[in-house]
């Protein structure tokens, strides 16, 4: 009787797992298939295959401009978030700083506070400064939103790293900066890169702050997609969505390779 109940649970569990997997993945697969459609509207299954929507994507200045803007935001903001976030994580984990745990929690606020509040707040603050509709304004917003990911990734890697390694270097005569550069930094690099990668992905995907702070002239891909989906959708949107999905898959793969080197094992 006991075995019977367990078997039934395993069957149910398996069925729910399959259903959840389909639920999470199937919509994305459908979008990828539709992006190769030959039809002029979003229908599934597509009547024929073509690359016309990808051609359309790269020939339409609205999309190519948006892509340029996204990259112009992504590179400086991910770099800044990584530099500031790594420095902060190092100070918080290794330093003797009063209130470190409170400061650490405060640095996570931008991903805990709902995006709409951050967006409205930045939009309001930017009005007096003339930062709305500028790249600078967007970059600052994106650094704020993405920095917590870097702080989280780097500090969790730092915590698994034995501080005695640095101490050993110091004992052997290395000045603090050299001990950091020659010992800690190389060990930490995979985590830093993984934080950078996630910051870049998060910046590219960020919508709500961009929606408030951008303008018709300075408009990143996410905002262009948003207005397209709410207007008349055509399969171009499926093409850009598929590219974003492919980008996410590659980033996830690279990240899992990096993770294997951080020493932080995946559960």
């Amino acid at each position, binding site marked *: *009787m006991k075995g019977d109940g367990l078997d039934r649970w395993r069957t149910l569990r398996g069925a*729910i*797992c399959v259903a*959840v997997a389909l639920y*999470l993945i199937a*919509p*994305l697969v459908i979008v990828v298939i*539709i992006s190769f459609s030959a039809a002029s509207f979003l229908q*599934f*299954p597509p009547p024929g295959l073509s690359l016309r929507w990808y051609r359309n994507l790269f020939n339409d200045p609205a999309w190519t401009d948006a892509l340029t803007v996204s990259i112009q935001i992504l590179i400086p903001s991910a770099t800044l978030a990584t530099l*500031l976030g790594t420095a*902060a*994580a*190092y*100070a*918080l*984990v*290794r*330093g003797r700083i009063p209130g*470190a*745990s409170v*400061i*650490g929690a*405060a*640095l996570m*606020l*931008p*991903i805990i*506070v709902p*995006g*709409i*509040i951050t967006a409205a*707040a930045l939009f*309001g*603050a930017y009005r007096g400064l003339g930062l709305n509709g500028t790249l600078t304004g967007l970059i600052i917003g994106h650094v*704020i939103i993405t*920095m917590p990911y870097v*702080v*989280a990734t780097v500090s*969790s*890697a730092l*915590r698994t790293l034995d*501080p005695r390694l640095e*101490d050993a270097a*110091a004992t052997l005569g290395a000045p603090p900066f050299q001990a950091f550069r020659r010992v800690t930094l190389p060990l930490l690099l995979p985590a830093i890169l993984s*934080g950078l990668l996630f910051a870049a992905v998060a910046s590219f*995907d960020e*919508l*709500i702050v961009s929606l408030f702070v951008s303008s018709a002239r300075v408009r990143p891909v*996410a905002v262009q*997609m948003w207005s397209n989906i709410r207007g008349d959708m055509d399969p171009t949107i*499926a093409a850009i*969505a598929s590219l974003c999905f492919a980008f*996410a*898959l590659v980033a*996830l793969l690279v*990240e899992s390779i990096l993770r294997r080197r951080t020493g932080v*094992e*995946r*559960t």
Partner: protein
Amino acid sequence: MSTSGALMPHQGEAPPARPAGRERAATGPAGRFDRRVFLLAPAVLLLIVAFVSPVGLLLSRAFTQPQVGLQNFADLWERRGFLQVLWNTVMISATATPICVLLGFPVAHAMTHGSARLRRWLIFIVLVPFWTSLLVRTFANVILLQRNGPLNTMLVGLGLSAEPLPLLYNMTGLLVGAVQVLLPFVIFPLHAAMLRIDPAYMQAALTLGAGPIRAFWRVYLPLTMPGLLTGATLVFISTLGYYVTPAMLGGPRQTMIAQLIQDQIAQFGNWGMAGALSLLLLAVSGVMLLLLQLTVGLKAVAR
């Protein structure tokens, strides 16, 4: 405990308290000024200038615009339309949360107790949508659920429905989209909690004569509570602030508080009311987190 932090960068990280036993003698006597403060300063400065101050300004407008006082909150209380939106917001969160828990629990269980191969696959499958843009996933749901979309085609084709069902721009659409986005938030904390359960407890319960069902209810489930409460709270407060999903998959009757805040600013320029609504949203999330802190401890939340 040890590994889940980096598993899920989205959820942030536990406040970096220095673990006991790792205090460094080399740093010198306690109380001495640590120059590493200078490494922390730029991030904290940016946070104060570009996040804390703007948010503080927005919230303060609740009490200062259009005039000083509590007028905005009084208005809020009298506007039936607003109260309806607040009610919607809470109800939608309260509906999405148990669905996420019911679907997430078996997945987390399989992730914890299944084979290594199954675990790797499940983690990958749960992480993929996590790394994929919210907008892309929401758009994918629009395609899936639309009137002539694949799901309706299948339902009609299989004879499960005589005509296409209205799955989009209503509560169904919103819940399908929201639960999909929120599932990882409950699966990972549950998985972390399940990993910590010593299998000896279940064996002891079974040896002592409890049936598997009884052992599950009395021993296993209570031990997953920290993870379950953490996941449920995360899902609940994330849903409260949702903007993209209700705007794209819900209908007018599923308007949520974030949409209301946006309308107040973009359509009416009513910063005072936007501030009041933001304050309300933050306060509710804050109270939920506080309750969680009191029950299972914030370390589990921030993970």
